[in-house]
């Protein structure tokens, strides 16, 4: 851990991610209202009357806040499952193709390119439709199975560059087996990359689920942010000005996707010290200049920053 340096950007990203996790994990325990129970009429305005009414009711008279926290939980669950599935598939394909090379590489990359060429949203919609009465879990599986090709491509590129390092030759000469070299000599060098790919896959899967559910193809009988958006659109909440029905799920989705993307880019800085130093020094200088005084000093600081960059 001594070499890992956490940047301010990482802490911001991490707190946002922790916040969404808390909403998803603790929210349903605090907001103790059944998301399927009718507690009011059509689009009742938010009020402080009871905890379930904090964000009003939706088209079916159900509590919006209860649907929101349960929907975040569903989204995170789908993101984790789908992200894990596509990362594992992509990792296996990319590692084997990149490390082995030759004809196996050609075959695996051929399959990957076919997977990339097929628009995955179409496959997901068709599969989601074919799996009648799908649950959140099957939806996550479907998203995960269609999402791996990008990870495979990226991991393969990294694995190819590691294949030619001398430590691989040394391992072979020591009599290490193929699997052992792949797991201990190649994978650890890519691990930071894999973590970032997983975060990206997770955010992609959450947005994919929302898109499918918003089109009305979501998991039946479950609660999700996408399904909330679907109903609020279908019942004209935007037209009637019932902002509490569509704004909270939209903001929550944006927050989840944004915090995951920010986490990914801050991890890039954490894992890659070269990227970190130049940037954070410059940013720290800018922050210091900004807090010390207002406009005049900023004008003086500017040329120094330019010089630093060259």
């Amino acid at each position, binding site marked *: 851990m001594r070499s890992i340096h956490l940047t301010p950007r990482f802490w911001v990203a991490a707190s946002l991610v922790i916040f969404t996790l808390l909403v998803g994990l603790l929210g349903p325990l605090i907001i103790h209202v059944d998301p399927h129970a009718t507690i009011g009429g059509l689009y009742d305005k938010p009020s402080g009357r009871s905890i379930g009414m904090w964000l009003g009711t939706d088209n079916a008279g159900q509590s919006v806040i209860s649907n929101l926290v349960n929907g975040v939980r569903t989204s995170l669950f789908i993101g984790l499952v789908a992200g894990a599935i596509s990362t594992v598939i992509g990792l296996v394909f990319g590692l084997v193709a990149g490390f082995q090379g030759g004809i196996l590489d050609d075959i695996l990359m051929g399959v990957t390119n076919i997977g990339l060429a097929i628009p995955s949203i179409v496959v997901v919609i068709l599969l989601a439709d074919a799996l009648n009465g799908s649950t959140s879990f099957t939806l996550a599986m479907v998203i995960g199975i269609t999402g791996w090709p990008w990870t495979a491509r990226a991991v393969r590129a990294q694995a190819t560059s590691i294949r030619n*390092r*001398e*430590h691989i*030759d*040394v*391992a*072979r*000469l*020591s*009599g*290490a*087996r193929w699997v*052992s070299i792949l797991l*201990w*000599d190649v994978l*650890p060098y890519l691990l930071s990359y894999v973590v970032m790919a997983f975060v990206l896959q997770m955010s992609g899967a959450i947005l994919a689920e929302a898109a499918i559910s918003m089109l009305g193809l979501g998991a039946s009988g479950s609660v999700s942010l996408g399904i909330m958006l679907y109903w609020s659109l279908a019942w004209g909440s935007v037209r009637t000005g019932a902002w509490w029905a569509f704004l909270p799920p939209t903001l929550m989705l944006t927050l989840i996707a944004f915090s995951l993307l920010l986490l990914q880019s801050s991890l890039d800085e954490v894992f890659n010290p070269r990227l970190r130093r130049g940037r954070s020094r410059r940013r720290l200088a800018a922050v210091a200049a900004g807090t010390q005084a207002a406009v005049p000093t900023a004008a003086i600081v500017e040329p120094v920053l330019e010089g630093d960059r060259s």
Partner: protein
Amino acid sequence: MSDPKVIFRGTGVTRRFGRGKNLVEAVKNVDFTLTEGQITTVVGESGSGKSTLARMVLRLLPVSEGTLEFNGTDVTTITGSARADYWKDVQAVFQDPFSAFNQFFTVRRLLSRSFRLLGERAAAEARMEEALNHVGLFGADVLDRFPHQLSGGQRQRVMIARALMMQPKLLIADEATSMLDASLRVNILNVLTDLRDTLGMTILFITHDIGQANYIADQVLVMEHGEMVEQGPADKVIFDPQHEYTRRLLSDVPRLNQSA
């Protein structure tokens, strides 16, 4: 001294990369022999094909044409367990003591990987310590360290120890000294001559520096653009070079006692 015995023989060894327009012949129809208990150096500038030759001798890279013979058996196309057995007899030390280490492994983990080929564990542990002592290191000092906690010279010596654990008959040192500073370089060269003298090990030493070749070699092979242009006993090649390229390599050696 008994009669010198040929331990390794390469006949018509050729290696091509790419195809069509991009075809490159890195090693062209090279014949050579290695004599048991001698240090043979391959000298040549960068890109002359000497490292490619070393990787072929190690069977890390397939040969395009020609045959390789070790102790009278053809090893040109061996794979799998036959090749693992071959690696018990033929080991290598590489150029870069940084990238030759898996940075996530301690020295102990790195060395204990060879246990699978060595068989019995207790004996293998003893060999590990013995191999480290041979290069002037002690297990207690280095075994639990990560590569970044060792100096360049220590790292290269650990690499030699790794090769020695197998008690190989032939050791290939591919530019093993070129990334070390001058004082450590002599130290490593002395370790190699010591291995020849005490264990009777055959060493194939690859370098771009004919000065080092002169210091260490019994036999010298000179390569230029993939071709073997001159070979013979060290005294003969260095003090009576026949080929123009060898003369040029010799004239490029910086001399301290000679002004300009």
